């Protein structure tokens, strides 16, 4: 074996120039942090901050023991919340499916007109939080469950539509080609070439969104859109901390159960 002597012995991951730039970059980040910290703390009243642990302990103390007797009264609002989430998800999914087919590059009938419109619907729906949708809808159609359901549905269109159109664009072209070659019509190509391929994604996305909507619908009551949030609002307003504790624990339990259901369903599909 001969020793190869003309190869360099030293290897470095970055050139000196890159190392210098990296160092300057980190310096800039630290400087930015220090500057932001100063702005942030300018108007802070430090007496309140130092007081925080005592306040937290005080509220925590008032929360204990939770007033379990309040629980039966919460069952109806909880049922409302679950209904808002479920009906809202169903409504959102129904509206999202056509939007997704219009937005997917390989199924849209018109790339220049309909696709941008569908993409705009998706962005518009995603950019507005359900709580804000609910605020608007309570103003428009009055307080109650319906406002909550529509708020959840409108917010879900964007989420479901975006994930679904990405799934449609990722379908296997060869399967679609094979169905086309049999002489199938456009509708048949959709139902045999594309729909079977996106079914797992469709159910996965829908159940995932339902799980998110359970969480989101718990706070819609804060703005009057029905459900358990109404009770939370009322208890907070009357400083009934032991009731707040019961509500929070109930929400936690519901969310855990919905996550479990959603995980099981997705596992069963995929």
């Amino acid at each position, binding site marked *: 074996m001969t020793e190869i002597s003309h190869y360099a012995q030293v290897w470095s991951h970055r050139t000196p120039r890159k190392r210098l730039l990296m160092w300057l970059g980190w310096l800039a980040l630290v400087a930015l942090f220090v500057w932001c910290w100063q702005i942030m703390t300018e108007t802070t009243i430090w007496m309140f901050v130092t007081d925080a642990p005592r306040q937290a302990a005080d509220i925590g103390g008032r929360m204990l023991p939770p007033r379990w007797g309040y629980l039966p009264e919460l069952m109806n609002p909880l049922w409302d919340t679950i209904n808002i989430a479920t009906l809202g998800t169903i409504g959102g999914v129904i509206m999202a499916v056509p939007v997704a087919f219009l937005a997917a590059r390989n199924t849209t009938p018109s790339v220049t007109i309909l696709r941008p419109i569908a993409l705009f619907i998706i962005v518009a729906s995603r950019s507005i939080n359900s709580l804000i949708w609910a605020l608007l809808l309570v103003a428009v159609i009055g307080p109650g469950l319906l406002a909550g359901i529509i708020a959840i549905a409108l917010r879900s269109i964007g989420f479901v539509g975006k994930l679904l159109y990405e799934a449609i664009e990722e379908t296997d072209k*060869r*399967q679609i*080609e094979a169905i086309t*070659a*049999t*002489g*199938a019509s456009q509708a048949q190509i959709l139902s*045999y*070439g594309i729909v079977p391929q996106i079914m*797992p994604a469709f159910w996965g996305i829908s159940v995932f969104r339902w799980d998110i909507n359970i969480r989101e619908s718990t706070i819609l009551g804060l703005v009057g859109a029905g459900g358990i949030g109404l009770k939370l609002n009322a208890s907070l307003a009357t400083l009934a901390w032991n009731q707040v504790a019961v509500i929070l624990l109930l929400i936690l339990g519901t969310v855990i159960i919905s996550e479990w259901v959603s995980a099981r369903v997705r596992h069963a599909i995929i």
Partner: protein
Amino acid sequence: MLRLIALSKTYATGDTALADVSMDVPKGQLVGLIGPSGAGKSTLIRCINRLVEPTSGQVMLGDTDLVRLGAADLRRQRRRIGMIFQEYALVERLTVMENVLSGRLGYVPFWRSWLRRYPPQDIRRAYELLDRVGLLQHADKRADALSGGQRQRVGIARALAQEPELLLVDEPTASLDPKTSRQIMRLLTEICAERDLPAIVNIHDVPLAQQFMQRIVGLRAGCVVFDDPPDQLSESALTTIYGAEDWHAMRQGDEEQAEAQADAKRRLAEMPV
């Protein structure tokens, strides 16, 4: 039966995939289409049923020029052309039966296909075809539960469900092992003989083409450079199609490989279980 007249295809990128290809395929003839990658074999096959739109030329299926047809007429004519694909192109999440029945899509209205309410004679025929390709007991399995060879058999059954007058076969054995490849080729040739079906078969494997095809068409850079029975496929003809290469040495290589495989098999058989 099928006549291509001066068929040309230039892609939007400016690549000429087919240049002035003319050929006749009479009823019952098996044509093997060989040529290097990028010679236009796949484009030629797809121009016939217009999965790829030809730039110019005519595709005469019987008396109909497929190139001139509007969308609805094209769909009706596509029913006459069965297609078999390289990687089977089955709808993986549907059952074997649904895949075979999808060959009837051009014949049934949308609601029937949507509700899977196919006419009884279509269903009976689908079962017959599954029996013919040896998959009757797998009818209700999902397509992705089958092996490669089995999936290609489903692909064949799907194409036959169309009751086609012509088969287009795109690299049917490219993803199969040598033994399964031969079984699939044998099945294809038998089926074509039974029904007097003409077929155009894209095929990478020259020995396989020589063994099973009645006519070999060699494509190079979009032009037909060879068109004769397989026994005329000499080394010089192969050089015209594929470019210079030591064909004799390659065949020796094939023999060596075959010997090695046989040897390995023998030793496997001798191994104590």
